[in-house]
């Protein structure tokens, strides 16, 4: 039993954090939302160079065949830094789905040179960033289709560009369980993204509370704000082990249950962080000029993405009452 990240994982996390901390990601995310993908694509490539895109690609297909823990580490940083783009789609889901039908594409996915996006109704009804994707997929039950992107739909998160899709060509009928496993991995990555966003929101709120003065003192001295921020710390601290636990249980009989539990807890914790960060910042947090709003709206979008918390709670209930 050793329930902690190892040194390589910590180093991987730090390398992503270091790079993203200097990459001016919020600016790239804003541009991305307006259809200018140039800076976002640069970040995409740099993250591929750092190994993110190769995590889920098997070693014999040119990838790293990394553990789900590494995936969680990477997506926490993606969430923390607000990186825009179809990462869950290209890094997590596509390698799993294309392994059988299009094995050659895996090396390109691993290298970051191919961008894939997809819709998988009902949980994921739209394809993210289909306009920058080389390939758009539509998962319909166990069927994998090549799809065509339709019109753009606006998300509360302006950096999420959602597209309607319609099936074009049927690519394959996937083996039983393959889609479920891929979507579980997506939900796990999304949970990690939420946790990263929640951590960042807490950090921003704490910094603001230390520096902002009202009524003659730092607002962080007021017990009401202190306690609200402490509650966020608690929520995040107890979401994290569920995330790591779910990563450990990938491949086991409990995987679906544990991923769902992680999604619920990460969503609730990140949402609490968002609401609290907004309240601590006051009006400034309510403006789009301040980057805080980018994280707040992203959390709102992600709690309903890759399965709503309602869907995931239902899955947990089914698992624990079946036993």
């Amino acid at each position, binding site marked *: 039993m050793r329930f902690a990240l190892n040194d390589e994982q910590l180093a991987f996390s730090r390398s992503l954090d270091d790079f993203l901390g200097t990459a001016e990601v919020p600016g790239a995310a804003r541009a991305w939302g307006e259809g200018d993908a140039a800076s976002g694509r640069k970040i995409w490539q740099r993250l591929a160079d750092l190994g993110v895109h190769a995590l889920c690609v098997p070693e014999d297909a040119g990838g790293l065949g990394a553990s789900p823990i590494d995936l969680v580490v990477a997506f926490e940083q993606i969430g923390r830094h607000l990186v825009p783009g179809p990462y869950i789609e290209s890094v997590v889901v596509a390698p799993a789905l294309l392994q059988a039908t299009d094995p050659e594409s895996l090396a390109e996915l691993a290298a970051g040179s191919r961008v894939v996006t997809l819709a998988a109704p009902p949980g994921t009804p739209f394809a993210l960033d289909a306009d920058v994707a080389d390939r758009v997929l539509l998962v319909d039950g166990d069927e994998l289709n090549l799809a065509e992107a339709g019109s753009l*739909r606006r*998300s*509360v998160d302006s950096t999420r560009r*959602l597209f309607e899709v319609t099936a074009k060509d049927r690519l394959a009928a996937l083996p039983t369980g393959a889609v479920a496993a891929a979507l579980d991995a997506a939900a796990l990555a999304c949970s990690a993204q939420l946790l990263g966003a929640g951590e960042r929101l807490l950090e921003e709120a704490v910094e603001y509370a230390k520096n902002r003065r*009202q*009524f003659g003192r730092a607002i962080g001295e007021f017990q009401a704000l202190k306690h609200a921020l402490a509650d966020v710390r608690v929520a995040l601290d107890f979401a994290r082990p569920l995330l790591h636990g779910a990563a450990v249980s990938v491949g086991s009989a409990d995987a679906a249950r544990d991923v769902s539990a992680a999604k619920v807890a990460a969503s609730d914790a990140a949402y609490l962080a968002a609401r609290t960060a907004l309240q601590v910042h*006051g009006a400034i947090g*309510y403006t*789009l000029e301040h980057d805080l709003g980018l994280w707040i709206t992203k959390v709102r979008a992600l709690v309903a993405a890759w399965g709503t918390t309602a869907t995931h709670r239902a899955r947990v209930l089914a698992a624990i009452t079946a036993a």
Partner: protein
Amino acid sequence: MNIDFTAQELAFRDEARAWLHDHVPAKPLPPLDSAEGFAARREWEATLAEARWSVVSWPAEYRGRDASMIEWVLFEEEYYRSGAPVRVAQNGISLLAPIIFGHGTREQRDRYLPSMADGTEIWAQAWSEPEAGSDLASIRSTATRDDARGGWVLNGQKTWSSRAPFADRGFGLFRSDPDAERHRGLTYFLFPLNADGITIRPIPQLDGHPGFAEIFFDDVFVPDADVLGAPGDGWRVAMSTAGNERGLSLRSPGRFCAAADRLVALWRERGADQPHLRDRVVDSWIAAQAYRLYTWGTVTRLSGGGDIGAHGSVNKLFWSQLDVALHETALDLLGPESELRGPDAAADGAWLDGYLFSLSGPIYAGTNEIQRNIVAERLLGLPKEGRAR
């Protein structure tokens, strides 16, 4: 104890209902804080004014109907139930007009109220400053006496001015006596937003629209005629209860009742397979109902000469929390579609827009932290300990 209305009140309500039924635009207007939305709402204000529905509680000479407080609440219920547009003139009508009626000169009333009533002049509030968010009394923007020109020269910066990006005139407090402490030495000014020396910088909100702006004052001259109340008396003028009763404190219950009814309708459409959301739907409806009844209690007290006082804080805490919870429940009912905005989304995106707007409730007009302090100290009598934000 009863909630019965007089024949006159019922007739008033029925007339309002009928008129709204015939005149409310069928399609929702563009967003309030967009240029088109703002313009469309100016027109709507004119339409309301023409039929004397824009300022029902004002005296007839200023285009009102001398409506009682009961009639005003009934009108508001009908207004929201009808799905009529959000009022672009609201800040002027609810925050400024009561002050003009209470402290303004005859000349000021005649000059400003008619154009406020028909939407030809839209007013924006200018309270907050960058260093004085919730701590209103720490205002730093200055008013310097200019005897030669018979007025004052304003300098400084205001922020979070709702409606300011598209509005015509502004009102706010400035420090006219630099030596006075905090609440003293402030003066209440009215000014055109296109005056020489004024720069408006719109600030986009979470919903992408510029709901508020910064206003920069660089030697802006305001004549004595546009001082509201006595110079140096601005804090008392601004805080006079008249300004709160029909404004933010007595926020129209119609708004929440209408939203709760829409939530119940949404539940009817989508609730069958989401029984876990039942309690939250019911609780939103109950809360809206509680707010409606609570308002009748407040109206009874105020009609009897009572003062809303610190109960306004109880009120604000309740509606701001109700509003967030109600919209969160709606978004949860919408499931994977809840992130969608705009006309393609459910209810033309009204749930998400309403949600984003609701998030500002616990922040503006005094954060909920401040309101809880007021309730604890003024209503419960708990000891002070340095005021919190």
